[in-house]
């Protein structure tokens, strides 16, 4: 037979669909799936939270507590902070009043958190910054507010469900897709966290007002936590879990105005009930000032 040379003009082995189109279609489908996963997460945790008994709540706390370094500070300091918290809970008749325990951790990060079981931790860096008892009470009340709203359980529940979904996908060989979905869900999560923070702030300023008769120190306590101004429209501002301080402060000030809380001058603020002489950055003048104000 003879050979007839002919050119193959059309390529049957490739698809003519533009790769970018394929990519964006896939991304959009993934976005839709992430939304569904997120709604599922929220629904499941909200329902589950109703049914978690106190015992489990306490048991969960032991999972976390042991990870942190021992509390620093004289027993006197921790006891005084604990004493303040107990006084507040007693006077205002807070539920679960006896389960709240405060400990101080040695960390350079200015932070405070609460774990299941009612264990509150304040870092030494934050403790350093307080100028009055009012501010300390505000922070303690904020954490108690999270506990009252069951925010810690929500975080656990959501993490568990998301982890479960990602594990199933990992078994199915789609591990990278699992990462995509986690990324998407985290972005939705941030709005959720901000709402939680604002609710905790609201609870805290109420407590402050009831205990002292005025709401001074609430706003300044917020401003202690972040020491850099993050602009709202940068990527960092959008992605940080705590709402930008400016927004939180504004929210709080609005609330104070609406509820006609009184704000008194700085001289009316109660001084801290203990002496801070443990931490490096203290200047000698501050120590003298505080020592002069110590009163019990």
């Amino acid at each position, binding site marked *: *037979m003879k050979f007839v040379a002919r050119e193959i003009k059309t390529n049957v082995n490739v698809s003519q669909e533009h790769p970018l189109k394929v990519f964006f279609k896939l991304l959009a489908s993934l976005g839709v799936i992430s939304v569904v996963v997120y709604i599922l997460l929220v629904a499941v945790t909200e329902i589950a939270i109703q049914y978690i008994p106190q015992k489990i709540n306490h048991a969960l706390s032991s999972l976390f507590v042991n990870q942190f370094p021992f509390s620093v500070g004289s027993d006197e300091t921790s006891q005084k902070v604990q004493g303040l918290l107990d006084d507040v809970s007693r006077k205002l008749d807070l539920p679960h009043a006896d389960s709240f325990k405060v400990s101080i951790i040695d960390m350079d990060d200015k932070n405070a958190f609460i774990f299941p079981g009612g264990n509150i931790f304040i870092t030494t860096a934050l403790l350093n910054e307080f100028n009055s008892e009012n501010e300390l009470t505000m922070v303690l009340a904020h954490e108690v507010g999270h506990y009252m709203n069951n925010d810690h359980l929500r975080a656990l529940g959501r993490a568990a469900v998301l982890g479960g979904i990602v594990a199933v996908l990992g078994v199915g060989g789609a591990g990278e897709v699992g990462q995509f979905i986690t990324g998407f869900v985290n972005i939705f999560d941030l709005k959720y966290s901000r709402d939680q923070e604002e609710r905790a702030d609201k609870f805290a300023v109420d407590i402050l007002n009831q205990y002292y008769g005025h709401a001074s120190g609430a706003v300044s306590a917020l401003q202690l936590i972040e020491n850099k101004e993050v602009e709202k429209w940068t990527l960092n501002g959008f992605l940080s879990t705590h709402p930008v301080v400016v927004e939180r402060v504004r929210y709080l000030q609005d609330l104070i105005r609406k509820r006609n809380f009184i704000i008194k001058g700085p001289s009316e603020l109660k001084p801290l009930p203990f002496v801070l002489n443990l931490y490096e950055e203290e200047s000698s003048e501050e120590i003298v000032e505080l020592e002069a104000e110590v009163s019990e």
Partner: protein
Amino acid sequence: MDQKKKGDKMIVTNIDAVPGKNIVEHYGIVQGSTVRAKHVGVDCIAGCQNTFGGELKGYSTLLEESRKEAITRMEQQAGHLGANAVINVRFGTSTITQGASEILAYGTAVKVE
């Protein structure tokens, strides 16, 4: 160039000739390939079946469809050249990434009478 009549089925064989016909012209090698991925449901089920053994029906179906498509593409390419048969067809399979594999079918495009 003779136009292939609509409805003319392409003859595909694995041997050097088409039995009962003569090869008149040949046009060289033609190939059809397709790359396919399984979706996550098939994989989950297959993962479970892995523990018990037996045929992984999801995968079998997937690869069967891929092979049919590869053969179809090869026939299409032969048709573009004016052939009506493809002889000496061979297959090749290989993994591209985890979960995606390529099926290749190739042969010689000829005209038989």
